[in-house]
Structures are given as C-alpha cells and as structure tokens.
C-alpha cells in the first residue's frame, strides 16, 4: 500500500529530474523568500507598535522566533530525509541530509545569537542556562556533529549514510535532551523567565511575525534547492547527463564570449 501511495513521487527521486526541478524552482523561491523576508522584517521593524514592556528591543522577535522555529523544522526535515534515505535506499533523500544540515546549523546559530542579543537588554546578561537556550545549543552541536561526520570519510557515499544514521539518533534524543534540560532548569533556578504570553500578542505584531516565519521557511526551501543541486552533481558526476549538461553550458558561455 505504501508503495503505491507514493508511486507518483518516483520521477522526482530520479536525480536528473530533481536537478532540473530544483533549478526551475530556485529563482521563484528565492524571489519570494527575499520579498516575504523584507516585507515581514521591515513591517516588524518600522511599522509595528513598540511593546509596552520591552520597548523596541522586542523587534528582535522577527528574526529570533522564525530562525528558532525553522532550526528545529530543518532538523526534522533532515531526519525525515535521512529516514527515507536509509529505509528505502533513496539516494536523493540521503543527499538532501547533507544539503539541509549547514542551513539548519546557520539558522540555529542565528537563533542563539539573536537570543543572546535580546537577553542582554531584557535579562541583563548575554546568556542564561535556560532550558530553551540549552536545548538550542545542543541542537547546534548535533548539526555540527552531522556535518563533521559526513565529511570524515574518504568515501563520500559512506559518510552520508553514517551521518543520516546520526541524524536519526539525534531526533530520537532531542525530546529526551529537552525534557532533561527542562527538569534540570526548574531544579536549578525555577522558571523565572517569561517571554510572551502567547494569546495576548496584538495582530499588528502577529502579522509581521507570521510573514517573517514564512520568509524563513521560503529561504530554507530556496537554499535547500541550491545545495541539493550541488549534491546531485557531486554524486552523479560520472553520469552522461551531467557531462552533457556541463558541456552544453560551456558551449553557451563560449558563444556569449564570441
């Protein structure tokens, strides 16, 4: 049943088709991502009202929350790709793991950095050992582990499989880590930090936030397309279609120069 349900996806598992699909999607995704990001961020920076408690510092939320959400979103999609890649031996899914990992790592770094820059004026310190912050830090380590492991093998195809397995192990562990850190945190300092009481956020603040979240998602998709194309080229370079593609590309640039 599972086989037939996803049969329509089969052509996209063919590297050549996927390469061209990503190439076609890339410009649209990129333009959309830049547009939504700028819209959300400029709206949030300049047009939303200031928070009555936090003043204008709260505007960091328009990058902090989206990057934090999608740092985890990227990890889940990476782990799903890893699972598909390993269980059904679909190679493009394995390559997607390597395409997503650096993007996720950068998103996590952004979330951590903006969190610190927000924490300094609000809590008076760059870093607190808060449960969420600690979990996010561990997430960054997991990303770095996946990236490091995938690069540690002389045979790239092997490294990518092992890194996929680590990504799956990580996703099993993330909830446990989060739960442990939360327990540890309440033991040590109590849940003193309150951010936003969620329902009370005003629509004039909420809309730009939602748009920014969408913008980060689109950027994630665009960057994944770009990086997946590189991965496909690396692992398919012995195939005739790659050679033909690059030959025709070289020809066209030559013609332009003439």
């Amino acid at each position, binding site marked *: 049943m599972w086989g037939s349900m996803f049969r329509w996806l089969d052509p996209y598992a063919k590297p050549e088709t996927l390469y061209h699909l990503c190439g076609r999607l890339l410009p649209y995704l990129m333009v959309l991502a830049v547009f939504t990001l700028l819209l959300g961020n400029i709206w949030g920076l300049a047009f939303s009202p200031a928070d009555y408690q936090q003043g204008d510092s709260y505007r960091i939320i328009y990058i902090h929350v989206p990057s934090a959400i999608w740092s985890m979103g990227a990890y889940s999609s990476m782990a799903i790709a890893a699972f598909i890649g390993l269980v059904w031996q679909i190679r493009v899914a394995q390559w997607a793991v390597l395409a997503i990992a650096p993007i996720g790592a950068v998103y996590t*770094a952004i979330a951590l950095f*903006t969190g610190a820059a927000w924490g300094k004026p609000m809590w008076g310190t760059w870093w607190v050992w808060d449960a969420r912050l600690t979990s996010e830090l561990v997430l960054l380590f997991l990303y770095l582990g996946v990236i490091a492991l995938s690069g540690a093998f002389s045979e790239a195809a092997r490294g990518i499989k092992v890194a996929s397995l680590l990504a799956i192990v990580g996703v099993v562990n993330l909830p446990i880590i989060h739960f442990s850190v939360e327990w540890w945190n309440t033991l040590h300092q109590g849940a003193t930090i309150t951010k936003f009481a969620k329902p009370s956020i005003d629509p004039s603040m909420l809309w730009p936030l939602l748009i920014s979240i969408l913008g980060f998602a689109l950027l994630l998709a665009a960057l994944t397309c770009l990086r997946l194309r590189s991965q496909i080229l690396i692992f398919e370079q012995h195939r005739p279609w790659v050679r033909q593609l690059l030959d025709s590309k070289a020809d066209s640039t030559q013609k332009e120069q003439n």
Partner: protein
Amino acid sequence: MAFNSWTEFWAMGGYALFVWLSFGTTYALMLGLWWYSKRQHKQIQQQICAKAAREQRVRQHQESEK
C-alpha cells in the same frame, strides 16, 4: 510608521545596538551561506569539467600509444 523620524528609527528606543546587531548578523550569515553555496556549486561544476578534461587527455594519450 511606529517612529516619528529616521533618527528615532535608527535609535530603536535606545536598543539600537542589540536590534541592529541581531539583524545585521542574521543577514550577514544568510548572505554568507548563500554566497558559499553558490560558490560551492560553481566549484563543483569546474571540478567535474576538469575531471572530464583529464579523462580526455588520458584517452588521447592511449590513442597515440596504439
């Protein structure tokens, strides 16, 4: 517009350092990742072309030996 003037906007109610530091770093990191991925893509293409040329040379050499 939530601000009365540009100077007020840049000042961010006294939180300029933190807000602009965050936004600046974020955009720098994103642009960096984009640039890095683009460059990587180009490098891979060049490497594959170089490899194809290498194979071509080997083949030519083998032809001339025959």
